[in-house]
Each structure stands twice: as structure tokens, then as C-alpha cells.
């Protein structure tokens, strides 16, 4: 992308999302856009550990679920104000990420996947166990919604939740952009690309890895809390394989390790799966085939397309130098 084109594209993206509710009041479109925004937050923050960090953290969706459950339980059962929901979600998610990260510090490769995945299953078992608190198999329902005086965030087709999620997305994008250019981010990338060399140059592996987990867990915690208050429930499915696969395919489709790829992936994929909704379970077949095809033929995902096009462009164009010589 051209240097000047990027800020313009970013501004257009957020401008469109800002005015969309004014142009379209349809409740179905509103719901899909809220869900797409939430997925974008989840996937782009997952990208911090998985993409930039190269740590195969399969507990990211569990952080989201932990945030949602913590918010739900504390505001519904223990009478906290719904406005404490987001801080509660963030704290719960961050605590969960520290717990996961401690064993992960000692492990590599496949073992990281196994431990992080086992952590999600452990949370799931605890949720199913504590039925009085979590609602067990049926999920936690009737979580109190956000309200300001007489205005509920559900009014005007959930417009409050829409703008709240959009604000979180903007913060997430800003944070990931900062991260990818900061000293902290460079250290994380250095550890991914060449761990022994980075460590020998004085990058503190454990401290950086822990910081990466904590940093990436803030966003799923926040959006988990808002999700719980938006749909007013939290279900054990949030720890499941299919949810994880869905988010993973968004990340892969968009392109790992880029700021905008995962966000594009989340939007394209949410819309795609709504378009395919009439197919029923058939859409999961399409999803699965898509993941394998992307991994096989476009390992860089959507984010690789501009680069790919640029390559085609330079290849198609006749080289200028011989032409100049002729003249």
C-alpha cells in the first residue's frame, strides 16, 4: 500500500462504521455488525500472541469466555453495578492469561497448544461443575444490561452496544499499531524470529512473554464483558472447538502478524457466514475447506493480496531499463 493511502483507508473504515447506524436502522444488520466488530477485536488481539509472538496460544477464546462469565456472575449474582462489568472482565481475563502463561513459559511448539487448550477445557469443567453460580450446561442467563438513567444500551436497536464495541475496536487497533512499532513489539517479534539470538542480545524471554500474554488478554476481557451484557448470557459453547476454529479461520483468512489482516478477516468472514446461513451445517463444510485452501495456497491470507498484486504488476510491466537503453 502507498504510504499516504493507509491513513486515508483507516479513516474511511472508521467513518463508514461511525455513520452506518445513521444510514441503516435494521436490527438484523445492527446485530451482524456488532458481532463482526466483536470478532475483529478478538481476532486482532489474538494476533498479538499468535501472530507477532509466534506463541500458539489456544486459550485466547477462553480468556474471552472467562471475562464474560466473570462479568455475568459478579453483576448478576453479587449485585455489582453493570458499569463494573468491563473492569471485572479485563481483570478476570488478565488473571487467566497469567495463569496460562506460567506453564507456557517452560514449553515449546505442540506442548504450548496442548497446555493452552487444556486450560480452556479446565475452565469449561469448572463452569459445568459450579452449576449454582454459572448455570452449568444451560449457560448463565439474565445478565443485567448497561443503562444510563432511562437510556438502556439496548434502545434504538442496541445502538449503545454498537458504539461501545466500536470504541473498543478503535482502542484495540490503536494498541496493536502502537505495539507493532514499539520497542516492546520489536522484542516480541525478535523472540519469534530467532529466540536464541534475541535472548543472547539481552531480551528477557520470560518477562516479555508474560507481558505479551497480559497485553493481549486485556481486549478479550473487555469485549467479553460487553458481549455478556449485549446478549445477556454466557454459554459453555464459548470454550468449544467450533468457536475456536471459527476465530482461527478469521485470523488465517486475514493474515497472521499484520495489523489490518485479522480485522478484514473478521468482517469478511462474519458477512460470508451470514450469506451462507441458508446452507445450514453445509456452511461449516465450506469454512473447513476454506481454511485448508488458505493454508495451502495463500499462507499470508488477505493481507498478502496487496503484495501479491504488486508482484504481478511488476512482473507484467516491461522492465523500464532496457527500454531506456533503446531510446
Amino acid at each position: 500500500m502507498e504510504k499516504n493511502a493507509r491513513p486515508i483507508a483507516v479513516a474511511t473504515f472508521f467513518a463508514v462504521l461511525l455513520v452506518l447506524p445513521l444510514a441503516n436502522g435494521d436490527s438484523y444488520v445492527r446485530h451482524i455488525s456488532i458481532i463482526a466488530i466483536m470478532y475483529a477485536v478478538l481476532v486482532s488481539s489474538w494476533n498479538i500472541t499468535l501472530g507477532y509472538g509466534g506463541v500458539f496460544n489456544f486459550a485466547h477464546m477462553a480468556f474471552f469466555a472467562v471475562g464474560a462469565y466473570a462479568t455475568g456472575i459478579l453483576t448478576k449474582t453479587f449485585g455489582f453495578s453493570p458499569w463494573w462489568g468491563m473492569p471485572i472482565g479485563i481483570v478476570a481475563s488478565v488473571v487467566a492469561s497469567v495463569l496460562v502463561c506460567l506453564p507456557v513459559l517452560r514449553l515449546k511448539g505442540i506442548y504450548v497448544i496442548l497446555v493452552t487448550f487444556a486450560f480452556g477445557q479446565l475452565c469449561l469443567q469448572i463452569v459445568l461443575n459450579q452449576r449454582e453460580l454459572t448455570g452449568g450446561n444451560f449457560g448463565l442467563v439474565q445478565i443485567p444490561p448497561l443503562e444510563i438513567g432511562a437510556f438502556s444500551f439496548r434502545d434504538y436497536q442496541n445502538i449503545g452496544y454498537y458504539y461501545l464495541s466500536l470504541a473498543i475496536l478503535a482502542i484495540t487497533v490503536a494498541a496493536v499499531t502502537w505495539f507493532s512499532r514499539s520497542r516492546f513489539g520489536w522484542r516480541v517479534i525478535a523472540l519469534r524470529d530467532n529466540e536464541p539470538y534475541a535472548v543472547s542480545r539481552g531480551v528477557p524471554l520470560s518477562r516479555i512473554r508474560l507481558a505479551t500474554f497480559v497485553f493481549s488478554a486485556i481486549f478479550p476481557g473487555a469485549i467479553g464483558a460487553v458481549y455478556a451484557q449485549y446478549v445477556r448470557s454466557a454459554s459453555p459453547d464459548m470454550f468449544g472447538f467450533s468457536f475456536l476454529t471459527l476465530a482461527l479461520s478469521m485470523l488465517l483468512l486475514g493474515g497472521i502478524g499484520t495489523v489490518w489482516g485479522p480485522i478484514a478477516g473478521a468482517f469478511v468472514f462474519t458477512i460470508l457466514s451470514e450469506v451462507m446461513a441458508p446452507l445450514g451445517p453445509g456452511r461449516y463444510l465450506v469454512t473447513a475447506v476454506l481454511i485448508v485452501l488458505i493454508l495451502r495456497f495463500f499462507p499470508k491470507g488477505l493481507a498478502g493480496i496487496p503484495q501479491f498484486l504488486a508482484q504481478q504488476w511488476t512482473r507484467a510491466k516491461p522492465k523500464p531499463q532496457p527500454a531506456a537503453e533503446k531510446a
Partner: protein
Amino acid sequence: MVTLDSLLLGFQSIFASGLVLASLYVLMAAGLALVWNTLGIFNFTHGALMAVAAYVAWTVADPRGLDLGLAVGVIVAILVAALLGLVINYLLVAPFLGQKQIVLIAVMTTLSGAFFIENSALLIWGPRIKQLDKFVEGNVKIAGTTISGHEAVIIVVAPLLMLGLWAFLRFTWTGSAIRAVAQNREFAELSGIRVKRMYAIAFAIAAALAGFAGIMLGAIRFITPGLGGEPLLKALIVVILGGLGSMPGTVLGAYLVGFGEAISTYFLGAYWTQAMLFLVFIAFLVLRPNGLLGKP
């Protein structure tokens, strides 16, 4: 008050249920371990293969299906599973072999494969739950407690199957070739072993083993597309616990997890047992990532 009698009775029931669980885990984990040991990847379609085999066996054997009898159903189902294993290997694993991050890529491709197979099963066989006939009717008394004949068959068959697998890997040319490929791919290739073919064979055998486990499960539990989900997780735990590259380790892991689960269920209840299992698993991975009998 705890009397000696009730303690004895408790011990007997723990022993019986532990033995059944452990034998099931041996069946489930054998194929997963074979692929992990040979190709160095985890095959997440293992659970889905169990479900498909159970469905196929049901379709062939059940009066509402083709009604050809259980024996035919079992054979057809195992063949179908092996064939599916070949297809999975060809489409989801072979094209990615040799890439730097093959372990992680294989997790993603086989996860998608499992997703695909489970949803196809849902489309083909519908959401109505089914169950296979038991292999043997009636009950058997062991160590003072009664278990079903089918469970007795599992207890006997599981070690026999492992023995057969061991003999195959130890004494046949193909088995030796598979082990050679697992130990040193380059050198095996230099000695004229067709590496890709060995991978395919190992994958097919593993899939057949998954199919057999699925059929066994299909007579105890209800057959749903997600039949293999929980067994897959258990098999993963068993294989990791046993250690990479060690078939005896896998068997040891299966019996440890089975009896551990039975003991924990007796004292803590079924719900806490699952949580305990994952907690112990995480702790174990941190302390000894190479497993009980695995080489570092």
C-alpha cells in the same frame, strides 16, 4: 461407618470400572500415538473418524439400514475408516510435510478436517441418535463386580490389539520400515524406503484403529457426530502422558489415566474428576514434557 466390607466393595468397583476405562483409552490412543510417533503430528481427525466408523457400522448392520449383520458392519466400517485415513493424509497432511511449522499447520488442517467430517456426518445421518448392538449379550463377573459382556470384550481385545500392533511394527518389513522412517527420515529414504508410502500406511492403520475404537464406543454410548470429541481429548492426554515415541508409554499412560479416573470418580465424583484430570495434565506437562517413557 466404613466397614471392611464396604471398603472391599468400593475397591472392587474401582478396579472394574478402571479396567474398562483403561482398555477403552488403550483403543482410542493407539492410533493417535502411531501417527504422532511416525509423522510427528497430532491428528485431530482421530475423534471424527471414530464417529464415522460407528455410523457406517450402524448403517450396514442395523435393520433400519442395510441389515447385513454386525460382523459385516464392523469390517466395512474399519475399511471405510482406513480409506478415509488415506484421504486425510493425502489432502491435509502430505502437502504440508517438510514445512518448518508442520506441527502447528497440521493442528489447523486436521482440526478443519474434523470440523468437516463431523458436520458431514450430521448432514448424512441426521441429528437422531443411534446405538450399535453389543458384541456379546449378558454379563460377566470379575473380581466380585458385574460388568457387561461387551465391556469384558473390550478389556480382552485392547491388550491383544496392542500386542498385534507391536508384533507388526517389530517383525514385519513394513513395520520396521515405518519405525525406520520415524527414527531417521533422511537415512530411511537413502536406504530405499518410500517415506511417503510409509506415512500413508501408518495413517491408514491409525485410522482403522480409530474406527475400531469408535465401533466399540458406539455400542456403549449413543452415536452422535461428536462421539469422538471427548475420547480424542482423553487420547491426547494419554499419549502425552506416555511420552513421545514410546508405544509402551502409551499403554502405561492409558492404564494410569483409566485407574486414576476410576479412583477419583469414586472419591470426588464425576464432575470434579474431569477438572482434576486437566489440572494434573497441565502440571505434568510442565514438570515432565517428555512424558513417562519418552526420550528427551
